[in-house]
């Protein structure tokens, strides 16, 4: 296997005394799309600037095709194989054409060649009729497409995207995501997408990096992170809506159990030593039933709780339902499933297979402890 295209080793960055990034090792393979998923303030943008070679790390080094990237002006030739698309389009105050050919101009490409290379990208991104328009008159979507064209016309070896679509409204954003995916696939460009949106990260990424508090908490393919988060922190990041702090109970007839908010939950097995546990269940794995629904047969391998509905929030075709079972629980219901949406205060039954319960290793997100306290009080 060829070596990585870009590699970071022992990179550390501090801002005013605080460590914002610490990456012992991170590799970017040629042709892959790597997405960096992290909450706000995790150091995503800093990591992106270092990978883009536009910021030099305080400690550690970046390697390009196995060779250390020089510091100072000597890195310009390598830097020019990379480019970045930022959250805001950041267009220069000139025409669309002037912006799209800007990078080529920096590289000293003659005017005739610039026009020739720019044309296909203007067409592909639907900007042909706008070439002479000043950027101050563009809509948000047009501006972002201009910024996309400006990057792709450089035919970069590595394209970095820093939350590129978070300023667009949802339909424009989906449209841009699909356009981007298609272009990346057809050009085989190596790309790094930084985002806090897990759907975006899972949709585009061949591999996903979970970045939390400046550390790489987990790297893997999207399914890996989605289904097998390495820790409580990652579980929260990839969308485990239910995270419960629990206390392990002694084994009884070979079945592991734990106590959450005064109720007992059956576990597949305790992989975690110690009494304090963090349990995770995805909301879509929980089946919610009305109390008057026909009783399904009781299953040994199933957890089953009754509780009161506390909140109902419509989410697309689904209803997001929060239930108090002695501990807070969240599940989805499709609108068709119930002729009438449940109302807060209504009794409801929650069922989920024992195999869906995951014991998550530390580090845990900070507020999982609060969940437990809330649960116990109620």
């Amino acid at each position, binding site marked *: 296997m060829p070596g990585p295209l870009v590699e970071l080793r022992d990179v550390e960055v501090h801002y005013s005394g605080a460590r914002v990034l610490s990456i012992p090792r991170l590799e970017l393979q040629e042709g892959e799309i790597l997405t960096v998923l992290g909450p706000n303030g995790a150091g995503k943008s800093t990591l992106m600037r270092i990978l*883009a070679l536009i910021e030099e790390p305080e400690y550690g080094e970046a390697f390009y095709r196995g060779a250390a990237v020089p510091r100072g002006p000597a890195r310009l030739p390598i830097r020019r194989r990379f480019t970045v698309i*930022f959250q*805001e389009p950041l267009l*220069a105050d000139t025409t669309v054409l002037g912006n799209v050919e800007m*990078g080529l101009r*920096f590289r000293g490409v003659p005017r005739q060649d610039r026009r020739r290379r720019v044309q296909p990208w203007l067409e592909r991104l639907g900007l042909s009729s706008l070439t002479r328009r000043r950027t*101050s*008159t563009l809509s948000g979507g047009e501006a972002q497409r201009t910024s996309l064209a400006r*990057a792709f016309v450089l035919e970069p070896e590595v394209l970095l995207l820093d939350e590129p679509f978070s300023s667009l409204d949802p339909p424009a954003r989906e449209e841009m995501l699909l356009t981007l995916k298609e272009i990346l696939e057809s050009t085989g460009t190596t790309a790094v997408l930084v985002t806090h949106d897990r759907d975006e990260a899972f949709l585009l990424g061949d591999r996903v990096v979970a970045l939390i508090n400046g550390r790489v908490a987990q790297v893997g393919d999207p399914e890996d992170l989605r289904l097998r988060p390495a820790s409580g922190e990652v579980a929260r990041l990839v969308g485990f809506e239910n995270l419960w702090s629990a206390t392990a109970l002694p084994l009884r007839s070979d079945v592991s159990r734990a106590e959450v908010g005064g109720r007992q939950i059956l576990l597949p097995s305790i992989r975690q030593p110690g009494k304090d546990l963090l349990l995770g269940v995805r909301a879509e794995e929980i089946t919610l039933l009305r109390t008057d629904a026909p009783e399904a047969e009781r299953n040994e391998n199933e957890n089953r709780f009754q509780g009161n509905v506390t909140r109902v929030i419509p989410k697309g075709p689904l209803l997001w339902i929060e239930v108090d079972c002695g501990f807070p629980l969240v599940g989805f219901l499709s609108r068709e499933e119930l002729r009438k949406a449940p109302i807060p205060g209504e009794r409801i039954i929650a069922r989920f297979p024992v195999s869906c319960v995951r014991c998550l290793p530390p580090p845990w997100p900070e507020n999982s402890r609060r969940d437990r306290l809330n649960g116990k009080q109620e």
Partner: protein
Amino acid sequence: MASLLLGIPVGMFLALNRFPGRKLAVTLVNTGMGLPPVVVGLFISIFLWRSGPLGSLDLLYTPAAIFIAQVVIAAPIVTGLTLAAIQQINPRFQLQLTALGASHFQVLVELCRETRLPLLAGVMAGFGGVISEVGASMMVGGNLKDSTRVLTTATVLETSKGNFVVAIALSVILLFLAFAVNLALTLIQQKRQRSAWPPR
């Protein structure tokens, strides 16, 4: 012109760099924007006085002395307005230029291009300061006929002689000059705004 060559780079440097003493430097520049020409004249006279530190250069009462005074008056204005213009650009724009492969110098050129309107305002203000200035020119130039008598100092002289016809003629020339230069600059500045209208 010399004020531009000095003022724009210094303004950019102050806008783009963070260093200890920067706040003091910016304050000095801002004070300099309101520098009374008479004070400048006084200090330059002292420096260039035959017994002063630069007296050996024999510059007092020469066109060169006026030139120095004008630079000292206009440079802070240009610097201050450049500083303000560059600082109002989104700092991420600079990052974007770098990410598109611009060298350090290319980034600076693009930033100037991006702020061309406020920079022109700086040029106009600097020009306005220079063309209207009397005190310093009088003091360091000496208002010598055919050598350091400029339009403003000549106007002062003719007025004090009661020679209003000549004074008015000089004033008209002065006004016309100011008008012509500012008209040219304004045309450049406003050309673009029309084409961008209506804004969306």
